[in-house]
């Protein structure tokens, strides 16, 4: 495929989305810090960041609609605009999940985080990072690989769940803390998969699987 330059209105939309991604990245680092060092007071910071992400998502959708009315894009430009609307939603959702983890860290004042929890989180975060690199880089092949690696996070999540389903000696809040956090991570990583689906549609025009 010939590399075509994006029109100005798309460049502006992508710039906006990169800023959103920066916010998600910094929120993600906060949570990494929180999980490693058991920080319990991250809720306020994360709430602020997610609100900003939410506003930016609404702005991005506005920009996309205006682009469609004004420029009446076709083919790759049309796909790029519709993908941008979906991916900006995914980004704001990811931020929401990060905030949920911060809430859980604050509410569950426990000392029993599973040793596999942090690695699972980092794995999920890496997936998200890679999926957005593939999206901004319009790399359909890399996006396909990410969709395949969704399994890894799913299995990690199941492993943690099983461990706590079997255990009887652990406390209820322990089970809840690890279970719910793992669940959130798994859902977060799903969005990386959704973003990758959009990347493939954007580049090739084909929709693979279903959301």
């Amino acid at each position, binding site marked *: *495929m*010939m590399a*075509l330059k994006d029109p100005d209105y798309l460049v502006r939309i992508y710039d906006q989305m990169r800023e959103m991604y920066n916010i998600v990245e910094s929120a993600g680092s906060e949570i990494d810090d929180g999980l490693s060092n058991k920080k319990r007071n991250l809720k306020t910071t994360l709430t602020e960041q997610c609100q900003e992400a939410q506003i930016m998502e609404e702005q991005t959708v506005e920009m996309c609609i205006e682009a469609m009315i004004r420029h009446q894009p*076709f083919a790759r*430009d*049309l796909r790029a605009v519709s993908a941008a609307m979906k991916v900006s939603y995914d980004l704001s959702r990811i931020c929401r999940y990060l905030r949920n983890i911060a809430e859980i860290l604050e509410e569950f004042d426990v000392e029993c985080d599973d040793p596999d929890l942090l690695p699972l989180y980092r794995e999920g975060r890496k997936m998200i990072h890679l999926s957005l690199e593939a999206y901004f880089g319009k790399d359909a092949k890399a996006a396909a690989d990410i969709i395949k690696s969704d399994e890894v996070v799913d299995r990690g999540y199941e492993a943690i769940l099983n461990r706590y389903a079997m255990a009887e000696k652990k406390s209820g809040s322990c089970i809840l803390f690890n279970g719910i956090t793992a669940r959130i991570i798994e859902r977060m990583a799903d969005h990386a998969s959704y973003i990758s689906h959009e990347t493939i549609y954007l580049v090739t025009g084909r929709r693979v699987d279903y959301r």
Partner: protein
Amino acid sequence: METKLEVKNLNAWFGEKQALKNVSAGFKGNSVTAVIGPSGCGKSTFIRCINRMHEVVPRARVTGEVLLDGVDIYTSMDAMDVRRKVGMVFQRPNPFPNMSVVDNVVAGLKLAGSYGKDELSEMAEKNLKAVGLWEEVKDELRKSGASLSGGQQQRLCIARALAMEPEVILMDEPTSALDPASTTKVEELLQQLKKFTTILIITHNVSQAARVSDMTAFFYLGELIELGETESMFKAPQNPLTERYITGRFG
């Protein structure tokens, strides 16, 4: 829907210059196909080969086959018959100024055959209604065809073509000289007309092609690059050239 019009290995020249290169395509009946492409790509030449108007240009030459309902229009039909079965609407409205509105509508019938006065009146009314002009002109039927507004004139020309009950109607940028309101009326009309006939419409306006057509044919430098369903072509064209054209990268 059967194949109404088929083109096989069509080549066309103006003297030494080749305007169409080995074009092959099929068009289904009761459909609207948009013909798009940058200036000089051969769109006009292409449709003029379908109603045998290309050959009247000095030093023009055509090879290949054009089949209307399976019959070759070059070898098995007389040129005049072809033009009665394949109508044309031009870029600038061209009603005959020396004839009234009614006479314009039935001009093709009157000048080529013998019909009674009442028959012609009925046909004029029927076709004016078909293009949505009847209500607007029914009190001014005797006025010159050229006294109507631009948009009305073009619809009159469509009625005139329609009156011949053609199998195919060719349109060469029919709305490019009209204001937006008239353009909308003509575009809506196409959806009605395709019930009676098959339409090929040349347009420079990619959005118009997206709005009015079922299929789209993209031409470039005399070749048919891509022919496909409008909906999928405008979301994800197969050919990179097509993509570049419809996203406005050139043309």
